[in-house]
């Protein structure tokens, strides 16, 4: 059975997850994965659910819109083509590409363009731009999945070259080093 992914966007406030999960519960849907984040004051939540066979995608979406009508949220629901919880290939190696340096327009675009040109998937991206001269106030960190087919040396060289052009300090390190140091 296909699962459904529900995406909720809107201004953050207490009770959003409670409202969404209550609505889904009342439809007898089962939450399989939930993830949410807050960017400044904007809420984004992702819910992957199992649903009763008699409920169609459209019915679920309409019911959510009805239940959350007074909350000014954007609701999106679609069929989720998931591969289960383990959606990473086992032979992938995860690297963190971190740039530190002055904020400029188009930074994310320029780096992700390079990453995409090597057919590498960005699995997570954190970007903090507060402006000013404080280096640690302007950070981008891309978590990318390198496969055996990836031209790793070429990718890293291109990224370092771009960072040099843009006056950014770049670090490219396997994720295990961060786990080793921080997750004791």
């Amino acid at each position, binding site marked *: 059975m296909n699962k459904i992914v529900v995406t909720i966007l809107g201004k953050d406030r207490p009770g959003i997850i409670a409202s969404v999960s209550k609505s889904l519960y009342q439809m007898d849907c089962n939450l399989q994965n939930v993830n949410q984040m807050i960017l400044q004051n904007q809420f984004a939540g992702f819910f992957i659910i199992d649903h009763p066979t008699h409920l169609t995608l459209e019915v679920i979406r309409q019911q959510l819109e009805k239940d959350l009508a007074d909350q000014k949220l954007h609701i999106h629901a679609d069929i989720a083509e998931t591969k289960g919880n383990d959606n990473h290939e086992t032979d992938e190696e995860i690297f*963190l590409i*971190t740039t*530190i340096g002055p904020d400029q327009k188009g930074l994310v675009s320029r780096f992700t363009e390079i990453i995409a040109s090597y057919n590498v998937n960005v699995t*997570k991206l*954190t970007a*903090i731009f507060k402006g000013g001269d404080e280096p*640690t106030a302007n*950070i981008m*960190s891309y*978590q990318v999945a390198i496969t055996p087919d990836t031209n790793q040396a070429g990718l890293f060289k291109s990224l370092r070259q771009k960072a040099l052009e843009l006056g950014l*300090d770049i*670090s*490219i*390190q*396997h*994720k*295990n*080093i*961060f786990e*080793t*140091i*921080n997750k*004791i």
Partner: protein
Amino acid sequence: MFNAQEIISTIEMVKNEHLDVRAVTLGISLFDCISHDLSVFKKNIRSKIIRNASNLVGMCDEVGEKYGIAVVNKRISISPIALVGAPFSASQMVEIAHTLNDVAREVNIDFLGGFSALVEKGIAPGDRALIDALPEALAQTQRICASVNVASTRSGINMDAVLDISRAIKKAAALSAADDGLACAKLCVFANIPQDMPFMAGAYLGVGEADAVINVGVSGPGVVKKAIERALENSPELDLGQIAEIIKNTACKVTRVGELIGREVAKNLKIRFGVVDLSLAPTPTVGDSIGEIFQALGLTSIGVPGSTAALAMLNDAVKKGGAFASSHVGGLSGAFIPVSEDLNIAEAVAKGYLTIEKLEAMTCVCSVGLDMVPVPGDISEETLAGIIADEMAIGMINNKTTATRIIPVPGKKAGDKVYFGGLLGEATIMNVNHATNKDSFVTRGGRIPAPIHSLKN
């Protein structure tokens, strides 16, 4: 995903606080190379070392690149040459040193350790040949490191060996006078030498070790210093117990990094992983100094009253952090205080804060001992032997490793500057009281008996 603070602190440790893997040392047993024929022996050791180590440097660079942590030195330790080369004469030992030097160059490593003898209880013919060969072997080669274990807690101090070694040190200094006695910087004299230490100049592969093994030496004095400074900035009222806790936690992180890198290198080379040696080993670079840690702790300089207590706390916290991080911590695992290799310690000597007597006192509570200590060139063999015997006694009685790496600098006196270059650094020659005396105590020879192992109160 890691939060921004975790990412920044990790990058800071690597980029600005000099966290690195100081040495990946490949230990290679040479016992299966033994032959009575010198040419066969040299051929055997060359082929065995190349077979095991040809990919060492490349693999260390590859793994270092992957994790963004530099593996600064790639080195090799071998079985004690005095044992595996026991049939050979002193001149043949010098030939062996040249062969090892050539092989080290061929596999692109800067130092190969194990031109060594274990003589704490007596001197066998192979040991005698090696000790006699030391001056020429060290002066004529660039990449060979030597060590001689002259004492142990179980056996006592072999005073014959102590005197022989002090003569060899003086001769090695004379043979490398043009380089300020540099040959002596490649010779360590030990009590209770560890079999698995990755750091030079004392590294060798013990007789109880595997055929090949990867040992890793991790450093990080800059990381510890920054951790202390950051903590005191945030909480100026921290007491020493709390600071020790911070050092311990930091040492734990640093050890984990070493183990991660070492295990991956070992796995990729299909060689057994041995130990992580977490020793705070400084370099002559600002921000990578043990001496600076003393200042972060609130002392004017290393060497002033309070230094021994501070070092005891530092050494213990490092050991505790390392022991928690890895089940395979070995080598020395503590704090080094090499005079010329640490810019701040060298300055403490130049400014008069640190004397050789205080340095000796401090070695009671830290790993190693009188390390990279330049002394006047006219120091007598007897006085040199006396200094070595004193240091060995500290190790023997306290059941710990101690060592000396003393460099008599030919033609120079206390207060003169000496420059060794690179990681060996530079320093002011330390004053040794009564340096030219020829006291008969050390010439009596024999063995100072091992200490009693009961009645410890």
